[in-house]
């Protein structure tokens, strides 16, 4: 029996059909944009809301491939490095703290009972709501931005690691003790290697939130960064800069996600999520 190519629950599209289907929404979006842009610019060549591809290429060329007249730097590269540094420190700190806290809380009941309510409480506070507090407490420099990312992501990582270590069968812990493990060995030599792939997984999911807090912090108080640039040129309605920057951020996010997935697949062959 031939299965339908598209319709119904039994649909089984051919490999080529899968590509066509997956690309179709993107093609559609680009087509709609180009059409709308074309008509608006025909109406008013100075329109800034929907710039043409040419205008965007010019903007990227100016920001990415030409040294800035004042600072002598490539603006887009500089912005990217600043932002990535903040994100890496913030998320990295979250991952380390979340891993250590979550694992120890799950394995040592005394620690778990002491901290789980607090961590849950912190995780429910919307980080952007305490943004003013963070800027007041940590200043308007790098520390505040990193802290916003950290505070926004570590509670969820902690809770996720806590949950997955709690879900480990008790048998595995008893088994390790019968093999002569001491308590700290149980934590760092039996449990830690087992939750590493889980940590990578939750860091992947936390990156979305991380970008959100990064852009927010940069929008409010910064002198460089991808979010800073977007909110700076917003004043001049410079969509020819904003749209390439957004695409660039999206690409960076996608690339990080892809890299982490590659690590999972190569280094943790035994892991099936």
């Amino acid at each position, binding site marked *: 029996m031939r299965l339908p190519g598209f319709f119904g629950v039994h649909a089984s599209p051919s490999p080529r059909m899968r590509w066509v289907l997956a690309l179709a929404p993107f093609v559609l979006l680009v087509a709609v944009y180009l059409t709308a842009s074309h008509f608006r610019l025909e109406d008013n060549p100075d329109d800034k809301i929907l710039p043409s591809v040419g205008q965007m290429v010019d903007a990227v060329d100016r920001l990415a491939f030409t040294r800035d007249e004042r600072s002598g730097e490539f603006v887009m590269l500089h912005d990217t490095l600043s932002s990535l540094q903040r994100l890496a420190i913030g998320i990295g700190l979250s991952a380390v703290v979340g891993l250590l806290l979550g694992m120890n809380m799950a394995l040592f009941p005394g620690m778990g009972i002491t901290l789980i309510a607090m961590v849950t409480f912190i995780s429910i506070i919307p980080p952007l709501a305490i943004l003013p507090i963070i800027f007041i407490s940590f200043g308007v420099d790098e520390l505040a931005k990193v802290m916003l990312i950290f505070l926004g992501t570590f509670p969820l990582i902690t809770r996720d690691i806590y949950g997955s270590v709690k879900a480990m*069968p*008790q*048998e*595995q812990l*008893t*088994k*390790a*003790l*019968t*093999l*002569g*493990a*001491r308590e700290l*060995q149980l934590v*760092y*030599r*039996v449990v830690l*290697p*087992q939750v590493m792939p889980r940590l990578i997984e939750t860091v992947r999911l936390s990156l979305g939130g991380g970008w959100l807090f990064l852009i927010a912090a940069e929008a409010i108080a910064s002198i460089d960064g991808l979010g800073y640039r977007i909110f700076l040129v917003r004043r001049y309605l410079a969509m020819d800069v904003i749209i390439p920057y957004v695409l660039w951020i999206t690409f960076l996010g996608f690339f990080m996600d892809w890299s982490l997935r590659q690590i999972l697949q190569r280094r*943790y*062959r*035994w*892991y*099936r999520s």
Partner: protein
Amino acid sequence: MSAANDKSTAPRLHIENVYKRYGGRTVLDNIDLSVTKGELCIVVGPSGCGKSTLLRIVVGQEQASAGDVMIDGEPVALPDASRGIVYQKYSLYPHLTALENVLLGKMLEYPFYRRRSAVEAHRDEAMELLKRARIAEHADKYPNELSGGMQQRVAIAQTLIKRPRIVLMDEPFGALDAGVREDMQVLLLELWEAYGMTVFFVTHDLEEAVYLGTRVLVLSQYYTDDRGPAAGPARGAKIVADHALPRRAMPTVAKSAPEFTELVMQIRHEGFDPAYLRHVRDFNLEHPDAFQTLTPEEDGRATRPDSSAPSPTGSASLAPFPSGSDSSTPSPPGRNASSPSPPGRDPSPPSPPGRGLG
């Protein structure tokens, strides 16, 4: 120290007056049990009778509400390397290959920065165990790449590398297909002989029990005592029968032997029949290591045991009843009440179990 003196004569595993209660419900009710070195001791019982609870108490995963667990005369509580365990599943670590799983017990003896030398020192030993378990060709596979039977082979090797004084097994073959299960039983008997293991094995499969065991304990909540009907629903399981089995030379043919099926039927009757209630004084405790410490409430006719009376460890304080005898021959009062505690321990019974539900 008296404990050190005990070591040579003390039974490998000694459990006395052990109770386990969850809230008002008593699961294990005054369990007394002594296992000699080299025994392949099987515990059977109806589902929910607490056999796995007993095993978890022995390994230390759960703590007894009252009573003592001793290995070679030394009290134990939390899990340690003196007792190895093989579970039905989750014995293996998913992030380690079969070989690494077996090596783990040795690796943990080394600091993490000496990993390499640990592997070098013990690789051959681990491979030898895997060979013995006939799984060496899969040494580099992860558990999720192995079938259930293969995983259990690795799990047994993993436990043996630490040379535990007693190997506990919680329905280790319960999830396997019949054919694989039989292979595993033969393998276990081989390893038991080769390594002189002492095994404490929990199963619900009576054929498996009689086939494997040198001793079969029947744990059951179907019995009566002098505590009256009030204790009825709160009454926990006891060891109601304790059989000594000869080790057969040809284990593979034994399953069809008439005495084999007869014993299976008898055990089913003793432990699994809710209508067949034997009095605590009349349990079929024929094994020479069997002993019983009854509380005055359980045995209304008994006088309170003289706590200073010493009695030799491991000796039968209880004359074996004829096997299969259903007649409730009255036993002399107090006979069951003396306890073969190791010297220096106070054998006084604990407070009677809660009768919360009464």
